[in-house]
């Protein structure tokens, strides 16, 4: 059977003054509906490039991406992106940022009242109702990223793409947001691709971890299925044998078999 999202033999080359640079070589990932997939690898290995190709911001040189059997090659709200540095519009309030997305995605499909309710619902989902009228500059990093997630969720994407969504946050805030994300995921059961370089984050959140080899011409080294029971509790997992085993598998891959040659 055809998978929900099919990243099919994707390669990409970027033109440089010294000839084409091959960033990805023959990357194939198959993702089921409602699956949470993390892509992990050292920085510069092209994991963000994979996400940009799925998002339609880059075009694959060879191969392509199929979503529900249709090829995608331009950006669209069915593949909403949460960027690493939140990318909220600084002149709009939290509410205004979500509103801009909702109004352009659901124009003609929802009434004005339904849209307002949908905006409020999504802000509520990320626990940001108290700050709906604040400008991004008045929010902390974690709060900004929550609004960024709310904005992406409000587009009702078929696939939610997250590019190191918590990479710029401190460890405690990051843990909070991971917990929130798990809650939301339990409720909405979205299909998610998350780029990360954090091993704990990947094991905690994912159903499947795609480990990438180092670039140039990066490809998929190994795919690890995370069969831990849901809901997962951070505290319980700390002493879970299986969790620690999975975690060490990933660390093993990253730091022994594909250690970066130059730090």
């Amino acid at each position, binding site marked *: 059977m055809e998978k929900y999202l099919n990243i099919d033999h994707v390669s990409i080359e970027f033109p440089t003054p010294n000839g084409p640079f091959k960033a990805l070589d023959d990357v194939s990932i198959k993702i089921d509906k409602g699956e949470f997939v993390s892509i992990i690898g050292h920085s510069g290995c092209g994991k963000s490039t994979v996400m940009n190709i799925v998002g339609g911001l880059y075009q694959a040189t060879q191969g392509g991406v199929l979503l529900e059997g249709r090829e995608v090659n331009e950006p669209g709200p069915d593949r909403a992106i949460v960027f690493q540095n939140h*990318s909220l*519009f*600084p002149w709009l309030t939290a509410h205004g940022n979500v509103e801009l997305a909702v109004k352009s995605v659901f124009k003609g499909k929802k009434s004005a009242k339904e849209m307002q309710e949908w905006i409020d619902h999504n802000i509520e989902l990320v626990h940001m109702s108290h700050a709906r009228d604040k400008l991004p500059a008045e929010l902390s990093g974690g709060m900004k990223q929550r609004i960024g997630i709310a904005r992406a969720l409000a587009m009702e994407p078929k696939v939610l793409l997250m590019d190191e969504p918590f990479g710029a946050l401190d460890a405690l805030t990051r843990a909070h947001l991971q917990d929130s994300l798990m809650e939301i995921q339990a409720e909405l059961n979205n299909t998610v691709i998350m780029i990360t370089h954090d091993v704990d984050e990947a094991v905690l959140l994912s159903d499947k971890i795609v480990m990438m080899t180092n670039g140039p011409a990066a490809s998929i080294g190994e795919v690890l299925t995370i069969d831990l029971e849901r809901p997962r509790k951070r505290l319980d997992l700390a002493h879970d044998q299986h969790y620690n085993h999975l975690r060490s598998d990933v660390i093993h891959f990253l730091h022994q078999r594909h250690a970066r040659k130059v730090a």
Partner: protein
Amino acid sequence: MKDKIINLFEMMGFTWFVPIVNMAAGESPKQQLSTLATMVGIPIVAFAVFLMLWHVGAAKVVTSLGQVPGPVQVYEQANILIDEHYAEREKEVKFFERQDQRNAEKLAKNPESTVKVRPYTGKETYFDQILTSLFTVFIGFLIASVIAIPIGIVSGLSDTLYSALNPLIQIFKPVSPLAWLPIVTMVVSATYVSTDPAFSKSFITSAITVTLCSLWPTLINTAVGVSSIDKDLINVGKVLRLNYLTTVFKIVIPSSIPMIFTGLRISLGIGWMVLIAAEMLAQNPGLGKFVWDEFQNGSSSSLGRIMVAVLTIGVLGFMLDRIMLTMQKAFSYDKNATVR
């Protein structure tokens, strides 16, 4: 309440009012007074020193029109200019009174007769000239902004257009208004032909010269502001599949508003400088013409009157800049950014 007033003053750049407001609200008078002393005291002392040096220095230079005016003479001339203004206004009022009376008498004799209402044709006062200058610079600046902002946005979005326009911008940017003026004068004379012109030719020539010189800072700043938009914000627009116009109005313009206002502020400053020169040569009845006429007049009071104009030009330029600064701050979404 207090915070609102302070915010307003800080926004307008009048930070030296802040301690006064704080004191009025009863906040440790001693500390506020010392803040006030450094913020207001130092500029006042500096200004006093400047007046002294001016007074002493001016007395040492003697020209064919007499001694260079010191602060005292300039102050006297300023008063004379104000008196002349009121005298002229009084004459105007009396002129209309006489005319109304004459017409009323004429109508009383013969209700069928036609009466004429003639406009007053007295000479402009100093304040009329100030208003003319402000209006001229405003129109020139407005035309420049209406041209520069859209071109700046479009060329900021397209690298091709930017490379096409950049050499032209760089060539015309440094051109002095005095070089443009003869060409503008001739073109206006040739094209603006009307039996009942709404604006005088000198006004249009001056305004267009202002436009030609104040176009560039706004254009360049807008283009730079637009081209330096955060790539991720543009990507968000792409994900939302916004069309070109929506992208421009919802993403591009809001995010480059601070840079646009920086450009507008520089443009208005340049426009005001250029205007005085343009008015001198085009004989537009504003401050520039005032200076030129006084220079040609060459009486013993001329230099004093010109000095009044110099100070007026400076103070008005400062005020225009403050208005732009206030707008720049009001429209900037990053309230933490320091704008000077």
